[in-house]
């Protein structure tokens, strides 16, 4: 089976989580709601120790001109931020008591 490599070689250890390389907030939020806490905890535990290196790596590029693998790494960092709330605060995917509420992100900066 061929696996498509999506991240820069320096971050091959995070390749298992590349399904979190999602370009929009709506996709990241939907994946968060569709994931279990053990799944998000595993992603959080893997990426947070690597976050400073990943940010420093992205910082070598301009936001206007990012190679695809670096862009994927940026999107992975956005997903890290997304899962931090379930992991660090809520202990569940959804904001507590927000069952009846939605707040859709309809416009965001690219990237």
């Amino acid at each position: 089976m061929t696996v498509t490599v999506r991240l820069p070689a320096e971050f091959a250890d995070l390749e298992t989580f590349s399904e979190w390389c999602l370009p929009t907030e709506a996709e990241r939020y939907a994946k968060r709601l569709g994931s279990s806490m053990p799944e998000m905890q595993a992603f959080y535990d893997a990426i947070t120790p690597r976050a400073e290196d990943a940010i420093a790596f992205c910082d070598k590029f301009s936001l206007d001109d990012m190679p695809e693998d670096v862009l994927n790494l940026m999107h992975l960092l956005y997903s890290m931020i997304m899962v931090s709330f379930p992991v660090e605060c809520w202990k569940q995917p959804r904001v507590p008591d927000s069952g009846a509420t939605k707040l859709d992100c309809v416009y965001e900066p690219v990237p």
Partner: protein
Amino acid sequence: MARFPKPPEGSWTEHYPRLGTDPVSYEDSISPEQFEIERKAVFKRAWLNVGRVEQLPRKGSYFTKELKVVNTSIIVVRNNAGEVKAFHNICRHRGNKLVWNDMPLEETKGFCKQFTCKYHAWRYDLDGNLTFVQQEGEFFDLDKDRYGLVPVHCDVWEGFIFVNFAPEPEQSLRDFLGPMILGLEGYPFEKLTSKFTYRSEVKANWKLYMDAFQEFYHAPVLHANQSPTNYSKAAAQAGFEAPHYRIDGPHRLVSTSGVRVWEMGAEMRKPMEDICQSGLFGPWDSPDLGEMPVGLNPAKCDPWGLDSFQLFPNFVVLFWGQGWYLTYHYWPTSYNTHLFECTLYFPQPRTPRERIGQELAAVTFKEYGLQDANTLEATQSMIESRTVNEFLLCDQEVLIRHLHHETAAWIEDYQRKTAGV
């Protein structure tokens, strides 16, 4: 013990004696009849913000805005002279909506040299003049000059586009805004152009959500579990006090002091805040925006948290001490529903690291927003039960008193002016 001095009268509420200190009724938020009056007495008379000039980058740029509260859709466009104009979005021929895309009731935006109706190809220039009629000779005595688009009063202040649906506005936009809001002139709005926009259909009266964001008395309680235990315990013990409130005409301000979380022990922060060097208040490393206008941070707090200006009726501009701002709009769709829109405005990030800091601030904002919104349907449904008709407001909730009071005053004024007409 008050941490911040209160006015000589002893409280912010008594500083504005016409507001009273008695319990209040929210009958104005649960009555279909009241809503029908508000549409005429408030939303068809006040200046309403519908966007910013950055949404119209060049001549011919336009966007449409669905305004159910005044039962219309408008086109906002930059004409060939570079001015911003607004028109009702209706073709003068057979009444088709002029500008829409795929879904007739959804908003759209774009660029064009003229507007062409999908139905029979009548054309209008960017000033609303009717310029072309298909098979013009088939019509009877058609004078095209009489059939331009119906204009809406439109004016721009500091890049914010306002419209007014009165036949003749009772006040100019500047007179309507008044000294407190005009004191914000000079803020570098034009430099903060990296945007995040959120939207929500909320099952509550528009005023109840405005109320939720015009007091921060709730913050240490409702949002306690967003922070590490050490921080939320300290916050709950301290409670919330604003250093300054101000009411000017129909508009309101609450100002808050800030915290330098990065100077606190690490146990007061979430790990993600350290990774991204950012949080709810914004990126820790704030941009240099130059001198701030005189109207901001009236209590001269250092650190300063935020200033939230509520512009009557349904528009909020909230400035963060960390160098960014956001806007809220509450667009009523019925007496117990509204469309909530929020846009965060940051400086264009210069580096991926800066972009990451902004992302955490934006994501954190949404988590708080969901907590704030989730109480609303619960509140609306129980107020509608009319089991309880009188509710208490503390001094930190003085601005809630004012919004309901002001809305009632506009209705009274409208009814007085239209009585016997």
